[in-house]
């Protein structure tokens, strides 16, 4: 499951999967800026058939945080 999430990150942000680690953070790489963030959120919503709440979209500021937030939606990562 973590592997699936890693691949979604890598595809949405257009970065190699090895770069997707727990402390990968929003704005820490040029690819994960606000434009990348929108692409990422759209990809996560679609892949897991969910619609994240406003506060979660804003809080989703690292790969680690993404796993925690997605767990709330019943997505085990």
């Amino acid at each position, binding site marked *: 499951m973590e592997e699936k999430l890693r691949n979604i990150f890598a595809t*949405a*942000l*257009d970065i190699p999967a090895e770069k997707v680690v727990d402390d990968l953070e*929003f*704005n820490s790489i040029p*690819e994960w*800026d*606000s*434009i*990348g*963030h*929108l*692409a990422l*959120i*759209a990809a996560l919503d679609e892949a897991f058939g969910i619609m994240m*709440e*406003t506060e979660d*979209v*804003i*809080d989703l*500021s690292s790969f680690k945080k993404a796993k925690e937030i997605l767990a709330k939606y019943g997505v085990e990562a």
Partner: protein
Amino acid sequence: MSFWLLQHDQGRPALIDETSGNRFSYGELAACVQQFARQWPSSEGKKLGFILCRNEWEPIVAYLASLQAGHAVSLLSDSIHPDLLQVLLEQYKPDWIFAPNEIGLDATYERANLSERYTMWNRLSSEQSKTGIHEQLAVLLSTSGTTGSPKLVRLSHRNIQANAESIAQYLGLTPLERPITTLPMQYSYGLSVINSHLQAGATLLLTNHSVTNKQFWDFFRAHEATSLAGVPFIYQLFERLRLQNLDLPSLRTLTQAGGRLDTRLVKHFHQLAREKQWRFFVMYGQTEATARMSYVPYEQLDGKEDSIGMAIPQGKLSIDEATGELIYHGPNVMMGYANNRDDLQKADELHGVLHTGDLAKQDADGYFYITGRLKRFIKLFGLRINLDEVERALESTVPVQVVCVGNDQKLVIVLEDEQYSQQVKQAAIEMFQLHASGIQVQVVPSIIRTPAGKVDYPKMAERVM
């Protein structure tokens, strides 16, 4: 009265800087600006400055000091590509550069002053340009992030003042407004928010955070921001964030410019604005007109969701009968373009008349509608991109023909040879500072041509989009 003179109630708050935590009243800001301007004795004449901008108080002080001193100043991104900065330095030979401390310059410049976050650099006297600068020239802005293109828009003191007045008037700005920065200050729309609110004596909330960042909304709430400005991409984010669910009781006004917002989204935000009693302004402009040319009065938006509205106060819109092109007349029309230092001597070349390059029609109520473009431009993430220019730039990086088509959602790069796909995509990202999600590379067996042998762009677009 000019907005850069800051002649408002001296005790009123003017700036709140999120990054440093500093706050300035109009009196304190005016004192800072005067102090900053003191480094330029008027006997030394008119100078050209570059400011590498962030939404922080120091670049604002440098900008206002430059206007007060009568200098010409170019506002550039602090993350400007080093190659582009180099080209601009060679072409324009600025006399001073104000930049974040981490940016270094070559030996043509010496450090004149160093503060906590910013450095003032002066060009060595032996290297100074003798070329004069036109007395009316105030601001130079870039229209795109194109590498290698030193083209800048020349704006006069009158241009920026007139546009600030027009905007303050139609938005009904008062000293109680507290706009929060969502756009960079070197971008004409971002700068227009700053200028028009200083004109009104309002309070600017400066932040570098994006709207997807929690700190942005914390800052918004802590200082009770009253308005948000957005390009279409920011409205896509607002839709996905569900702006209506964020607890923002101080929010009164939304403005939109920087490219056409999808009619579906205009309707969506129009509906939300009615429910929340926000004022939602759909607007139209270009850097060549300082920023703004038209707007839809928020209470008239019903049924006009795909319109650019009517001309701003002091302006006039018309349609060229022969070509269908939208023509704007007004005191905010630029003096012209510049490509190098010599061009800064030039007087006003446009005389208040701008050919927008957009095709338009007008309805019975006098509202204008954009129907297309004369030239091949797209607007990606609020950035205006000339497809022909992208093609030429990409062709300089690969040994094969490149064809670019696109719309305001994506740039499609078409190649006949797959082996260069990654290379052109990477070049487009780097040279034009675009995000990968807005770029697609498509490989076709052969590029479609007209009988005359030219690339058939409408057919290519149909094929790959």
